């Protein structure tokens, strides 16, 4: 029982990452009708916002310590971050420690700008082009973006720890009446789960309760008619692209303490997020979220020893197996509409 509970927790956590990425992907597809293969790259850029902020905060003043030597026998250069000089060592260290959550503030404007630039500079010209062209051009863009990141940050993962406050883990089992230490869960993963929930709720509320959201939803349903009504749908769609980029970016920022960012993390998530979107049903926002959590939980269950000993290698293929079964039994995914992306 406790083993199952803990895998549900794991699944929810994985699922919230899948759901956030798939949500952005669906927003772009649903509003603009564009298949965005660079969405994984947006997630990656978000993660590197955290890395960048961490680097900025640790820009250091170099002093030479003649007492100690470096590996070549020269006097050691000691690096002290400027923030520690300005705010004193303790507050400075705390600011550096909180780099990941602080990076949210950096990521929102950066991601919205990146989103605008992408939409205005590139995607705009591809609305009328076949999906294959969209895939190819955004795939090219994804490669370019990740190679730029690699040029500046190298290929190895970069550690981006959570603030020390969130570094421990919480004994959830005790609350639920289990023995101590049976169900333990890291604080940061709980933070990530609630963060993802908040973002998802905010996006839905935004689309549901604002005029802007209403227009966008109308545009998703029938773009031409909304355009005929004299509403400038293009400008709103640009904003939606920025919003989708920001969602992907925030998912990336907050995920960094769980998964040390490297330049190809976007590609690793890309296939998976497409599977999630399709299982959920193309263009359906609730579908994307539902499928994200569903696949996360199923993947966690498949990794259990009991399941693996029954079906060796099942954890390697579970996602694809589920996708095949769902697509064959529910032709348009869990919550898809008829006629979307079927030609």
């Amino acid at each position, binding site marked *: 029982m406790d083993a199952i509970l803990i895998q549900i927790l794991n699944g929810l956590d994985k699922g919230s990452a899948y759901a956030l990425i798939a949500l952005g992907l669906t927003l772009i597809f649903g509003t603009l009708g564009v*298949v965005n293969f660079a969405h994984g790259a947006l997630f990656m850029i978000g993660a590197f916002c955290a890395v960048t902020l961490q680097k900025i905060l640790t820009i250091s003043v170099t002093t030479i310590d003649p007492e100690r030597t470096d590996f070549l026998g020269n006097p050691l250069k000691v690096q002290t971050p400027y923030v520690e000089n300005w705010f004193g060592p303790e507050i400075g260290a705390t600011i550096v420690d909180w780099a990941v959550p602080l990076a949210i503030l950096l990521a929102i404007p950066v991601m919205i700008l990146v989103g605008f630039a992408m939409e205005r500079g*590139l995607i705009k*010209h591809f609305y009328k*082009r076949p*999906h*294959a*062209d969209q*895939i*190819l*051009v955004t*795939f*090219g*863009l*994804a*490669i*370019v973006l990740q*190679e*730029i990141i690699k*040029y500046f940050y190298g290929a190895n993962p970069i550690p981006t720890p959570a603030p020390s406050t969130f570094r421990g883990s919480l004994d959830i089992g005790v609350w639920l009446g289990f023995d101590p230490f049976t169900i333990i869960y890291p604080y940061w993963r709980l933070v990530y789960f609630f963060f993802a929930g908040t973002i998802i709720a905010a996006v839905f509320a935004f689309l549901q309760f604002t005029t802007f959201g209403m227009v966008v939803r109308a545009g998703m349903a029938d773009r031409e008619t909304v355009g005929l009504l004299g509403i400038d749908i293009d400008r709103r769609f640009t904003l939606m692209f920025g919003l989708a980029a920001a969602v992907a970016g925030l998912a990336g920022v907050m995920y960094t303490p769980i998964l040390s960012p490297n330049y190809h993390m976007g*590609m690793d998530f890309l*296939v998976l997020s*497409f*599977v999630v979107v*399709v299982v959920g049903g*193309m263009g359906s926002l609730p579908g994307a979220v539902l499928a994200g959590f569903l696949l996360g939980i199923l993947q966690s269950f498949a990794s259990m020893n009991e399941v693996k000993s029954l079906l*060796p*290698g099942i954890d*390697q*293929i579970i*996602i*694809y*197996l589920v*996708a*095949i079964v769902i*697509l*064959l039994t529910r*032709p*348009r*995914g869990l919550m898809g509409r008829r006629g979307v*992306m*079927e*030609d």
Partner: protein
Amino acid sequence: MLGLERKDTYLMLAVAFITLFAPIILNPFPAGSALAQFNAGYPDLMQRFVIFGIFAIGFNILFGLTGYLSFGHAAFLGIGSYSAVWMFKLLSMNVIPAILLSIVMAGLFALVIGFVSLRRSGIYFSILTLAFAQMSYNLAYSVLTPVTNGETGLQISLNDPRILDGPSNGGLPVTSLFGAEMRDSTTLFVGPWSWDFSVGYYVCAALMLLAFYLSVRIFRSPFGMMLRAVKSNQQRMNYTGLNTRPYTLAAFVISGMYAGLAGGLLAAMDPLAGADRMQWTASGEVVLMTILGGAGTLIGPVLGAGFIKYFENIFSKINDGILHQWFAFMPDGLENVMVTLIHPFIGKGWHLTLGIMFMLVVIFLPGGLVEGAQRTGRLFRRRDRNAGHVESDAARQRAAAE
């Protein structure tokens, strides 16, 4: 000729000519000169050009004609390779049985996967094929290691039975076609130039010409017309009471067999089959080749395949040392500036250059390289013919395209 229209005959002849003289055409720079870096006329790469050409031609029969975008075609390539290597291990080093088995096995898998996947269309079809291919890749890499030798790749070894060949004499046996070894080659030295003519390449080239000929025949056949009709409007086809599924399934199986042939040839040229060949990026690569060259055109996929393989093998090998050689004639300061400017795009940055090229081609040449060639051709024609004629020509083409 051979049941082809005149235009197609010319195309066929041109392709045959280029393929036969590829060892010369691809080595335009004298060996040892600074530009020899850009020579591509060595057997391994030429073989890859034609093999991936076959792969892309086959993919184009499915995607170019029916519009069904498969994201899992690399699986058939991998299955072809594994079957071929197993044939080398068990039966004989002769390439014929290996290639036959790889085509048959790939065809069988394509039949099953196609039968299931073709129940859906659009992106749902793409994801289904992707899912099948990724499952094959993940399993081949880990659980199926007894069959596939996992990460290391399946190789021939001294202890293999090879029923027809008998025991080998010390060294590892070599793949051959009735005694003609695949890796045999003759080098022709003409002045400073050197050209390699290898047996393996000409075996691949002959099969590619055959594959190309078949694809031309398919494109021009009533069956090809039917597939094109599926692409333009499947619903209308269904309303006329026609079941399109057998046609698309046939196209899927044919293109799967092309992929199997390509995989078998890869193994015949170099008897190793790695799971990496089945990864989704490999499937993506053939999509890129086809679209880059010009989907739905006859020659486009081959061009795209050559383009990408050239990048992968030639651009990635340029390093800073070579750059310094190129710009050695410049003053030191300027030399360093040039090297610094170009550095991010070559060697370990070849992915970046490739990404930029994709984007440029897709943005400015939606029809791929073939459209680029047509435009250039039109540009030249404009000089000696009146402009009106060219415009009407272009308009006609556009109308035909739409």
